[in-house]
């Protein structure tokens, strides 16, 4: 499935939600301003990725890891992001671990519970696909 150029911008709904949560109640944002923030976020991601990649290359690795991204944040003078990002990473790792273990239990009774698939959340479905294709801890996004 091909990605359209518009998809290079991060989802509008997400951007809008974050902006609304960041601003006090009753404050609005113009369409131009929101669009500008969205583009700025895209540039931020591109810049951060490139920066993180430099750290990966320095470490002679072909795969970007979370540590590279954190180093990039410092390099880009966004040190204030590092602590909250580390926290999020911990939570994320715990969740991933929990999902893995939940899946092991699920697999044991997989046969008798096939009809439960329709009840599952979207996220679980994606994780299922991921698990089937790559049993490794680290998923890789191929270029």
């Amino acid at each position: 499935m091909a990605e359209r150029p518009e998809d290079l911008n991060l989802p509008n709904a997400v951007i809008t939600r974050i902006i609304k949560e960041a601003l006090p109640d009753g404050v609005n944002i113009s369409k131009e301003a929101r669009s500008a923030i969205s583009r700025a976020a895209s540039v931020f991601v591109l810049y951060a990725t490139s920066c993180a990649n430099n750290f990966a290359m320095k470490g002679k690795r072909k795969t970007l890891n979370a540590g590279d991204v954190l180093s990039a944040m410092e390099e880009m003078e966004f040190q204030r992001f590092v602590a909250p990002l580390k926290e999020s990473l911990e939570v994320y790792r715990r969740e991933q671990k929990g999902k893995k273990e939940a899946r092991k239990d699920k697999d044991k009774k997989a046969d008798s519970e096939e009809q439960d698939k329709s009840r599952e959340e979207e996220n679980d479905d994606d994780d299922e696909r991921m698990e089937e294709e790559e049993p490794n801890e680290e998923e890789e996004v191929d270029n």
Partner: protein
Amino acid sequence: LCRGEFPAQAMPAVSRGPWPDTNCHVPALRTSVPLPPWEDAPARALVALVKADPDVSLASQEAVYILARAAELFVETIAKDAYVYAQQGKRKTLQRKDLDNAIEAIDEFAFLEGEFLLGLVWFQYFV
């Protein structure tokens, strides 16, 4: 990955800011990438951005997740910083010029500055 041209009409009608339009086709994504905590399927947009860098061959699941979170923090930060200018102007609506002011005033946002041409070069390099 293309090195396409940016037609004049894609350029936003403002006096500053490198917000070039991206006219390049991004190749299809391979297989499954776990979604960051964004509800939508278009979280693949973030992955597309990561993939857009020709020097990046692989990115771990964790790296993509952390980038998504960082992007969220960035949006929050820039919105708050821009709002200061709206307040100064006694407005309850954040406008484009508030963004411009924040970007000019704040060092961390320097990477967002520059002429349209520089932004063009930036996007051509990455996309």
